[in-house]
């Protein structure tokens, strides 16, 4: 039971990562590698702030700003410097590795004995792992809600059309460069925020905690899409969170089968690869028709 609660809690905390990546991966239509640098950047900023006696919530805010700044650089490289987006992301990600070491001063900082957002009296009174479920739930609802509101504003619609058809967007007066930069800033800000939350939940920050992060974020997005199928944009954002929780359950099952945590990156990659290929295969093998036939016969 406690393992299931733990998986749900982790799924919710990590969901923010997927929701943030959705903005660039699904709306702006490109893979932003900056993520692998901004996730540990957020963790580094938050943990360093906390060990310097800053309030844990203020640490989250600072992490968001740091991530947004990194996103701004990727955006400027891509839109103004005409560096291909994949390369721009890799450049900023690599630069972040040094920046993170500068910020932390060492490769690993523990939060042992420090106040975090989890050290609140009420959260501590909850049964084990329920604290991360509650914090994760509040964070996910708040962020998803704000994003859904944003996407339904005039500015949000201009952001969506920039990814959907940049030529048309420009022809109706939308500054597509500005929208791309905005998306990268918000996305990386949220990714750093999720790094800050995970670091506080884990009780430490490590410079290597960003490795393989983009695969986890993509897995939440793709699993959500594969499982829930055709949805509206708002529903798809919610599906990312459910995808993230499902992903945690898959990991839980795999670990129960006897794999070690060292195999996690390999397993994550395999899960993502399968999910990415699934639409292709189900079309080839006519799985969808098979399913429908089964339904109509019964």
């Amino acid at each position, binding site marked *: 039971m406690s393992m299931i609660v733990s998986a749900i809690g982790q799924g919710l905390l990590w969901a923010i990562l997927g929701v943030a990546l959705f903005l660039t991966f699904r709306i702006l239509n490109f893979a932003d590698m900056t993520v692998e640098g901004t996730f540990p950047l957020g963790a580094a900023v938050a943990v360093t702030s906390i060990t310097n006696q800053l309030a844990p919530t203020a640490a989250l805010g600072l992490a968001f700003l740091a991530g947004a700044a990194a996103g701004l650089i990727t955006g400027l490289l891509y839109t103004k410097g005409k560096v291909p987006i994949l390369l721009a992301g890799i450049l900023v990600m690599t630069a972040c590795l040094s920046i993170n070491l500068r910020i932390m001063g060492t490769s690993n900082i523990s939060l042992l004995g420090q106040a975090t957002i989890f050290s609140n009296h009420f959260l501590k009174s909850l049964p084990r792992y329920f604290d991360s479920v509650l914090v994760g739930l509040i964070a996910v609802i708040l962020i998803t809600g704000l994003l859904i*509101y*944003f996407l*339904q*504003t*005039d*500015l*949000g*619609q*201009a952001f*969506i*059309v920039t990814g*959907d*058809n940049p*030529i*048309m*967007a*420009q*022809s*109706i*007066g*939308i*500054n597509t460069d500005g929208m791309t930069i905005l998306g990268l800033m918000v996305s990386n800000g949220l990714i750093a925020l999720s790094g800050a939350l995970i670091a506080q939940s884990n009780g430490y920050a490590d410079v290597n905690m960003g490795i393989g992060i983009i695969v986890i974020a993509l897995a939440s997005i793709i699993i959500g899409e594969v499982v829930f199928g055709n949805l509206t944009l708002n529903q798809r954002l919610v599906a990312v969170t459910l995808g993230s929780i499902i992903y945690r359950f898959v990991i839980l099952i795999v670990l129960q089968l006897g794999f070690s945590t060292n195999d996690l990156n390999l397993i994550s990659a395999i899960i993502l690869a399968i999910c990415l290929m699934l639409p292709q295969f189900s079309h080839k093998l006519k799985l969808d028709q098979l399913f429908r036939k089964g339904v109509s016969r019964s």
Partner: protein
Amino acid sequence: MNAENQPILVLKDLSVAANQATPEQNLILKQLNLTINAGDFVSVLGTNGAGKSTLFNAIAGNLPIPTGELRLNGHLLNSLSAEKRSRYIARVFQDPKLGTAPRMTVAENLLLALHRGQRRTLKPRGLKQQRANFQRLLATMGNGLAEHLDTPAENLSGGQRQALSFLMATERQPDLLLLDEHTAALDPKTSDQLMAQTNQVVTEQQLTCLMITHHLEDALKYGNRLIILSTGQILLDVSGTEKAALTKTDILAYFGQLASVEN
């Protein structure tokens, strides 16, 4: 002189090159001079490579203008970005895929274009308040678009997409409407239908419009003025009764003349 005949778009000694900033650059438009009056509906003809698309790209702001002047309503546009120009200039592309956002619904596309050239803010988009208006607007096209208010644009037929692009370009009256072979990708029947609707909207709203076309019949039938572009310059510019008297043979004769010069 009444307001109808006021010059609205003025091109003065406009030169635009392809491959700009490279040694191989060659002039596509050569010191072009053209004055378009308010309410003019101009058909633009010309062989491939005559500079028709370059002319549109230069006017819309997708190509920089190294020499010459481009004025709209007296204001110099040369250094204004394409985004800023969209406030005054609307365009319909030849490719049905270019003019609409595929994953957004018909209503969402219309809403986006309703704010053409305006600042986008964090105000809720207000799609519900516009639905009835959009429904009415779509019904004017008479090709079933009105039943597809909530259909993503990618699921529309090419003709419906172009009709939608046309509505998006005209729903907020532009000072200048650019139609870039907007019926060329459609079958003859759909093309005629969209052309008739285009004519109706342009005349009713008294829009100033430049229309590139390869259909000689359309060029003769619609509009009050016709120009033929050749190697970056204006070869023929007729309007009014002179244009009305023009026949297909006359135009073909001009193109024949072109061919003999080029050979």
